[in-house]
């Protein structure tokens, strides 16, 4: 890292070109290439030097990615390791020891080690802080028992970020502790959690006397809620922000069928289609405006509203598509239990019923629509918070 760090996109692009000249992606093993890119600080330029970055602004990263893409270089398949990149990495960066940052971040970024997130539980969904998974100290280790749900990628993960209850005798937000846990140990069992589509995108994770070295604790004992905020703040940025062309989302399926198959058309469905076309296009423009705000450094609070709109639209449009297709929609393609490589929200190659069913998850996953509305009402509109009955009650005494 002897060259001084560049601070504008063009110098940075030049740096990528120099790297590429020395590392021919066509001639190198993919993993070796990714490791070299990491070591050159071109993985995530806003990370510190020595940890895959150059200590620059996050906004400079797209220029780097684009330059690599232009050269046909392999990427780290970010959709596959989204939880590691988006949620685990910022948390590890903020709370892990220097040694462990070095140990964890490189294979996390290259995708050699997949990370998953052990937060939600059957009894703690919207109310995450009510979670019940217990961690009890035992010498230099912690012993963990409990059940987590809605865990993407758990069956492929080497590591997980985990929130546990370490003190049941204090109010719920205060008795939590955050860890990184080795998913490959015997005390961790991963079972597929199947959805109404027939697929199992998610998992349940059962921990039975699983063990964690105290060194893998992230943040202080009892500070788990604060640490989890770091993680969750990074989750919601991603949603609703995709940049799609007109008819690029769910509406595209219905519009395509409408154009291709005049025999399905009715006046009532035309009106319904046009209403949803308008809503979809307006939502798309709203996403575009949201991105412009972010770029202009005016981070708006519209993210939660965008997620709400996205869920509602996907549900309404896929519902209309079913009615439009009629008899065809009564036929499904395959109920067989499968484990998809990644989340497929739109199901472009699936039966319309898949889109209809999968969309039902959109208003539940990543914060329910009810939670989104609470967030907008309280944090954006400044409306009074709900009357809280659980603030000063020891976790163990909460009604459940």
């Amino acid at each position, binding site marked *: 890292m002897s060259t001084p760090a560049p601070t504008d996109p063009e110098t940075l692009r030049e740096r990528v070109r120099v790297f590429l000249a020395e590392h021919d992606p066509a001639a190198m093993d993919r993993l070796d290439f990714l490791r070299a890119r990491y070591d050159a600080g071109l993985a995530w330029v806003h990370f510190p030097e020595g940890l895959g970055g150059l200590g620059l602004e996050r906004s400079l990263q797209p220029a780097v990615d684009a330059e690599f893409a232009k050269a046909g270089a392999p990427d780290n398949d970010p959709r596959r390791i989204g939880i590691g990149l988006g949620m685990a990495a910022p948390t590890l960066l903020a709370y892990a020891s220097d040694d462990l940052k070095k140990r964890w971040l490189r294979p996390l970024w290259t995708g050699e080690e997949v990370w998953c997130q052990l937060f939600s539980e059957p009894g703690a969904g*919207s*109310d995450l802080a009510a979670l019940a998974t217990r961690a009890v100290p035992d010498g230099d280790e912690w012993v963990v028992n409990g059940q987590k749900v809605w865990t993407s990628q758990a069956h492929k993960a080497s590591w997980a970020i985990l929130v546990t209850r370490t003190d049941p005798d204090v109010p719920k937000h205060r008795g939590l502790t955050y860890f990184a846990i080795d998913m490959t140990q015997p005390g961790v069992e991963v079972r597929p959690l199947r959805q*109404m589509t027939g697929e199992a995108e998610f998992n349940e994770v059962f921990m039975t006397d699983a063990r964690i070295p105290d060194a893998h604790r992230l943040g202080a004992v009892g500070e788990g809620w604060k640490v989890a905020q770091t993680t969750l703040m990074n989750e919601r940025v991603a949603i609703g922000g995709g940049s799609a062309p007109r008819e690029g989302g769910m509406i595209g399926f219905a519009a395509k069928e409408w154009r291709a198959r005049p025999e399905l058309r009715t006046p009532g469905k035309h009106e319904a289609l046009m209403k949803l076309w308008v809503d979809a296009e307006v939502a798309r423009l709203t996403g575009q405006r949201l991105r412009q705000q972010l770029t202009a450094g005016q981070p708006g609070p519209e993210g939660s509203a965008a997620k709400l709109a996205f869920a509602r639209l996907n549900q309404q449009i896929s519902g209309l598509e079913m009615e439009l297709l009629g008899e065809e929609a*009564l036929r499904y393609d395959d109920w067989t239990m499968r484990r998809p490589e990644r989340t497929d929200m739109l199901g472009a190659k699936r039966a319309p019923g898949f889109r209809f069913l999968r969309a039902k*998850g959109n208003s539940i996953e990543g914060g329910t629509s009810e939670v989104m509305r609470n967030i907008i009402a309280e944090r954006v509109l400044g409306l009074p918070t*709900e009357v*809280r009955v*659980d603030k000063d009650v020891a976790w163990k005494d909460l009604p459940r």
Partner: protein
Amino acid sequence: MNLLYTDVETDLRASVRALLDERAPASAVLAHIEDADNTDLKLWRTLATDLGCAGLPVPEERGGAGATWRETAVVAEELGRAVTPVPFLGSAVLGTAALLAAGDAETLEAAASGEKIVTLAVPLTAMPDSYAPTVQAEDGTLTGTVTSVADAGHADALLVPAADGLYLVDASDVTRTPVVSLDMTRRLTDITLDGASGRRIADGTDAVARALAVGGAMLAAEQLGLAEHCLNTTIAYVKERHQFGRAIGSYQALKHRLADLYGAVSQARAVARYAASCVADDDPDAPVAVALAQAYTSEVVVTAAEECVQMHGGIGFTWEHPAHLYLKRAKADSIALGTADRHRAALAALVDLAPA
């Protein structure tokens, strides 16, 4: 027109519900959901024979229970409530209605007594005002395909519409292909007739039209039962489920949505009762009543099932919870026998509100 439930209807409901609660609770239906064939024929025999559900609207002297479509609607409500996988709609409703109109005494008696399953071979999406037969008849020989037929998998005989009338065909003379169905508790079958021999039991299309009209009224009752079940099961859940130290049913946003859903279900009950009564009485307002009921209940049932999933949160999205069975049936029902907008269009013509 009496829109309430009579004592007889209330007793009938109690019998059916007791049987279903015992023999086909949601857990049992769910346990068999991946079976290649999950039709509960044993349960159907009990319903059809012991409780007379196969021939409720058929006069006693013709082998039935001597009741009307009103009582049949109550059974439809209960079967909807429990998403019971039995061949009720395709045979005891559509088949029986067609046979009653056609007047084939022997087949009617066999069907009404529950001895035979006789299914009307139309796509589940058929509507009275637009249905056109897809099978050709020539000298009593039938050729063609009928796709997406409900309750045909275990039929002993099929009632096959052709241009010149309705034909009775032995099920062993046709090829039946099971369809991977959205509605896992009412699976569909594609039927191919390749020169099957049939006996014409009615001329023209009146019998089919009548069956589809009756079907619409009974389907509205099924949708009512399903919607009401979704409402009740959701109310029970939100009273139990705690988040933030409170039952989630204490949050006003959920309370208001459930109050609205309650209102919609109450309204669905009134219109479903009206449609069943009109059909039972052969009232001149029956076409309006059926279109009205279908236009309304098709939307309520989907809303109810969607709210059921949403208010159950994550668990409602899983395969392990029965909510998806209700959702799949609800959506399929909203498409079955015509979507709401098609019924609104039919209604517009009936009440002199011409389109633009």
